[in-house]
């Protein structure tokens, strides 16, 4: 059920939105079609399952004042985000996407750049969930621990990172998002053109994306985002996107959320690496076993073998 609560969850939410990389970016063309369940619904049977809920931000709607006003939240979360959720649910009901995780829907409907209709809504639902959780009351300041170490290593300094992040956010012409991501050496992403194919090590990078796009389609691990659609800042900052970005960095960013996501990202990256090595070993073993198999086939083959 959609909750319209002004006082939302008070305790800080541990970020549950670590990207799902179970789906390995299928190379097959995904055919999106409605299945028989829709007929059952028309006949009056069954219940329309609203797959996704409009998750409230992990703080009250006025908690980020004066930097991000309650009025902004009432429209941004209460209208824009809500519409993405409602429209996505309508689009996926009774289709093969119904029952998939949100992350999988995003990747599948990205469809190698030939966007399927639900992509826009799915991407925006995910992006906004991620965005609310990227901020907190009394946010800003500086990160610490391993996150700060990696920032220093990959950007030179925290100040350099800020500069690069703000530049990406300012030069995202039109609507879109700027991201800090953990990139774990994915050169072949299968589903999309890798925007940073030359980076080899596991490292932090800044990327930007237009409209509903997000780094899940590039198989990166998102850590932080800022919404630079005009609706995100127009009520509070009008045309002054650079001011909005400065306040976002100085007063709103939840470095705890970013650190926690980095931890999850590294664990997932390691698990994936192990899984890929295991698969490679398996294939090598199967390769030696297969050299015996043809004899079996030849014996039982009654058609073509001559």
């Amino acid at each position, binding site marked *: 059920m959609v909750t319209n609560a002004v006082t939302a969850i008070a305790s800080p939410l541990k970020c549950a939105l670590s990207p799902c990389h179970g789906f390995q970016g299928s190379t097959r063309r995904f055919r999106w079609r409605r299945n028989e369940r829709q007929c059952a619904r028309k006949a009056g049977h069954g219940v329309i399952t609203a797959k996704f809920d409009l998750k409230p931000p992990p703080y009250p709607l006025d908690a980020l004042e004066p930097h991000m006003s309650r009025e902004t939240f009432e429209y941004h979360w209460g209208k824009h985000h809500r519409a993405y959720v409602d429209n996505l649910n309508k689009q996926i009901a009774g289709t093969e996407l119904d029952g998939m995780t949100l992350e999988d829907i995003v990747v599948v409907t990205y469809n190698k750049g030939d966007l399927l209709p639900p992509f826009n809504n799915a991407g925006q639902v995910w992006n906004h969930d991620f965005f609310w959780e990227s901020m907190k009351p009394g946010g800003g300041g500086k990160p610490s621990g391993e996150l700060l170490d990696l920032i220093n290593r990959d950007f030179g300094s925290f100040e350099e990172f800020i500069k690069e992040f703000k530049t990406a956010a300012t030069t995202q012409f*039109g609507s*879109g998002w700027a991201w800090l991501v953990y990139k774990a050496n994915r050169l072949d992403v299968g589903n999309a053109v890798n925007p940073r194919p030359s980076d080899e090590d596991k490292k932090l990078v800044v990327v930007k994306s237009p409209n509903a796009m997000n780094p899940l389609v590039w198989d990166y691990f998102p850590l932080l985002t800022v919404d630079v659609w005009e609706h995100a800042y127009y009520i509070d900052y009008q*045309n002054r996107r650079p001011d909005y970005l400065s306040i976002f960095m100085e007063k709103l960013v939840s470095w705890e959320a970013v650190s926690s996501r980095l931890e999850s990202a590294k664990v997932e990256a390691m698990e994936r690496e192990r899984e890929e090595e295991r698969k490679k070993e398996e294939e090598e073993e199967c390769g030696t076993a297969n050299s015996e198999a043809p004899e079996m086939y030849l014996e039982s083959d009654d058609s073509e073998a001559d």
Partner: protein
Amino acid sequence: MALRTLLTRKTLAISPMGMLGLRGLQTFSLPDLSYDYGALEPAVSGDIMQLHHQKHHQTYITNYNKALEQLDDAVAKCDASAVVKLHSAIKFNGGGHVNHSIFWKNLAPVREGGGEPPKSSLGWAIDNHFGSLEVLIQKMNAEGAALQGSGWVWLGVDKELKRLVVETTANQDPLVTKGPNLVPLLGIDVWEHAYYLQYKNVRPDYLKNIWKVMNWKYANEVYEKECP
């Protein structure tokens, strides 16, 4: 060097009010509106008109001039990769200037004819091609509402085929990016900055109301020039 000549000639055509910069390269300046900021109310609020004109359009011009100066520099140094790198800033900011300059002329206060339906040649062409003005408006509103992100919805004329078209462009891409023979007659800005303070997330309401201040006289003038 041919690139620079092409640019200066084009700039003369677009902005007769431009000033000559250091190397004879024109710079652009903000064109005045022929009506007060509040004159389009209640369709478009004075606050929006002022911000839209004085801040957004001015920023496009400022950044366009900056990019052109950098381009001039890169061309003089024969730095091909710097030239190529500048193209997106030029397209975005230059497009923003071109599009908004048209937009201000597309609008007029009601007492100066804003909202009056088109007559004569453009009116006939619309009826011929779309069936009626209502159908055209419905089509443009539908496409404008469906546009993801930021962009424009246009009524244009193909000057070769002498045919009206409805098109959308993303971000600040001018109509000509959809076809080299397309000439814009009317453009509606559907970037959120064009309506958010007044209409918030309800873009369809903005689209419904902006026709009340549409300057069809100007659109007809442009049309008759291309289709005499």
